[in-house]
């Protein structure tokens, strides 16, 4: 069985923020790849660096503090890290798109929905006005916005949160990108609307074969949307593998503890395991494993030396001294 082609290949990416409190090593040696038609979940809690990772991929780090200091982001073989800003403008929205949590920041309040979709389409389709309008209506229909002809004339404030996110989605895929980065796109939506929206994203992905990086802290979404998962902690990926494997047999102590702390819909309701303490600040990282201070299995080596990423199963790896490495398959 041949795997789908790799569309995005991130290698040892480091992005730091230079602030007056010190260097914040937000993304500190992150590697992963996205395949056509597949969804990779990037999970972690606040401050782990997952949003900064997403922003680094499209070179949208906050300036002037943020900088990619090392590493590569190969989009179909081309390294985005070395591209100029004007070259990146052709990449964003067309080859790699991003949708964020808050549709307010993505939509311009003083332009109609129609104008904003047309703007996105115009970059990709050199059609006349009428043909473009038809495409825009079709784009809205595809994200299940009812009565698109009327909606074209609406302003963002006249729409609900769910509908705004759908419009944002329509704009994001208007350029037919190869990669979609979704950063907590449903966190601000009601759960029944979230379900609609996730189903829509899946449908769009099936139709266009786009590769998705889904950044989230919600394991329920991961179980529904993701083919593979990478768990981030303090700027690094501590475990990565097929989604089912991460749920059935997480190997990194952080992944295990995190999953154990998620409240379930069935089973006992006595005590919910939690993780004592907090992650280390990204501007003041310890030598050695960053989870050491909170880990139940910590030993001296963990505190002295950061563990290498080791294979622990088929397409499954973890950065921990205490796991049993397994021989890599294939």
């Amino acid at each position, binding site marked *: 069985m041949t795997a789908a082609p790799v569309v995005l290949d991130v290698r040892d990416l480091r992005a730091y923020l230079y602030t007056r409190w010190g260097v914040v090593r937000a993304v500190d040696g992150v590697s992963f790849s996205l395949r056509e038609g597949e969804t990779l979940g990037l999970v972690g809690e606040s401050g782990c660096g997952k949003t900064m990772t997403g922003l680094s991929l499209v070179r949208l780090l906050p300036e002037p503090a943020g900088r990619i200091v090392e590493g590569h982001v190969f989009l179909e073989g081309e390294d985005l890290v070395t591209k100029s800003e004007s070259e990146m403008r052709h990449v964003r929205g067309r080859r790699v798109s991003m949708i964020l949590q808050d549709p307010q920041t993505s939509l311009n309040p003083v332009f109609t929905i129609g104008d904003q979709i047309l703007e996105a389409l115009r970059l990709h389709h050199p059609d006349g006005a009428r043909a473009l309008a038809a495409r825009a209506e079709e784009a809205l229909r595809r994200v299940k916005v009812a009565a698109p002809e009327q909606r074209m004339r609406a302003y963002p404030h006249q729409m609900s949160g769910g509908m705004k996110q759908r419009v944002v989605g329509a704009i994001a895929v208007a350029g037919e990108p190869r990669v979609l980065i979704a950063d907590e796109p449903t966190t601000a939506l009601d759960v029944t609307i979230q379900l609609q929206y996730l189903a829509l994203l899946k449908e769009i992905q099936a139709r266009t074969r786009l590769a998705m990086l889904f950044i989230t802290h919600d394991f329920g979404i991961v179980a*529904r949307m993701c083919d593979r998962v990478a768990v981030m902690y303090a700027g690094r990926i501590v475990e990565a593998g097929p989604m*089912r494997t991460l749920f059935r047999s997480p190997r990194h102590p952080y992944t295990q503890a995190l999953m154990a702390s998620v409240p379930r*819909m069935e089973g006992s309701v006595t*005590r919910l395991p939690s993780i004592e303490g907090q992650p280390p600040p990204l501007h003041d990282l310890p030598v050695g494993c960053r989870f050491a201070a909170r880990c139940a299995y910590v030993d001296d080596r963990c505190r002295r030396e950061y563990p290498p990423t080791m294979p622990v199963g088929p397409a499954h790896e973890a950065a921990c001294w205490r796991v049993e490495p397994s021989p890599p398959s294939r």
Partner: protein
Amino acid sequence: MKAVDGVSFTIGRQETLGLVGESGCGKTTTSRLLLRLEEPTAGRVLLDGQDIHALRGAALSRYHTRVQAVFQDPWSSLNPRLRIRDTIAEALVVNRRVTRAGKLERVEEVLHQVGLPLSAAARYPHEFSGGQRQRIALASALAASPELIVLDEPVSALDVSIRAQIMNLLKDLQARQQLSFLLVAHNLATVRYIAHRTAVMYLGRIVEHAATESLYRSPLHPYTKALFAAALPADPDAPRDDMILSGEVPSPIDPPSGCHFHPRCPFAMEQCSRVAPELKTVAPEHVVSCHLY
């Protein structure tokens, strides 16, 4: 606009009632009514048989010590210019008989109860994380020795592993201090951990209300079923009920006629658009308002 339209429930001592629903359902307005931050247009809120909106003077002051609140946003709920001890002590100002020394002692007591070190008292909010700030908010609520605490989305702004810490803490406090909680939340899995009974709200009305175990074992109202279907389990092999509702959540300003849920309900019948269903008991301690039953 009827934000809350004929809602009735009781909360016993050392009991937690979970109030769940999506935006516009009225759960926040309900919690504000209990806190006297809103006046009811009709109906009453009784604490130990007394109408809280009819209280005046000393009885009213005492009410505010008996019912306290913790809100969702740990970032804006604490006064950034006050030290933690002063924020917590504010709740004690109501009872003027407490001396300065008595106040400090109480501050230390509640900090201990919420698992924070005494050194936190002299510090400022910005020095603490979201989870720690919620503990401080809880400490403030506990300072006046309340009987009922209204918790409005107390953990939804926190990281998953921190949520677990706070939920465990709430459970412990309830057991140790015989506290009652009204837990307003949208996350069903979270509610399940501490609510003894749960009520589901939609557009200002309670559509289903039961012992938590009973509700979770057999949700009856179509909206409850949709909520459960949307509560994505952290388990890829959990049985999937893809009940995806069509349409948007209607505005409470102009709710649909009859049963408010009928336009989105996959089981809607002719009478649903004409007649609002009554709350009926269909199982021991399990009520639902739906023409299907």
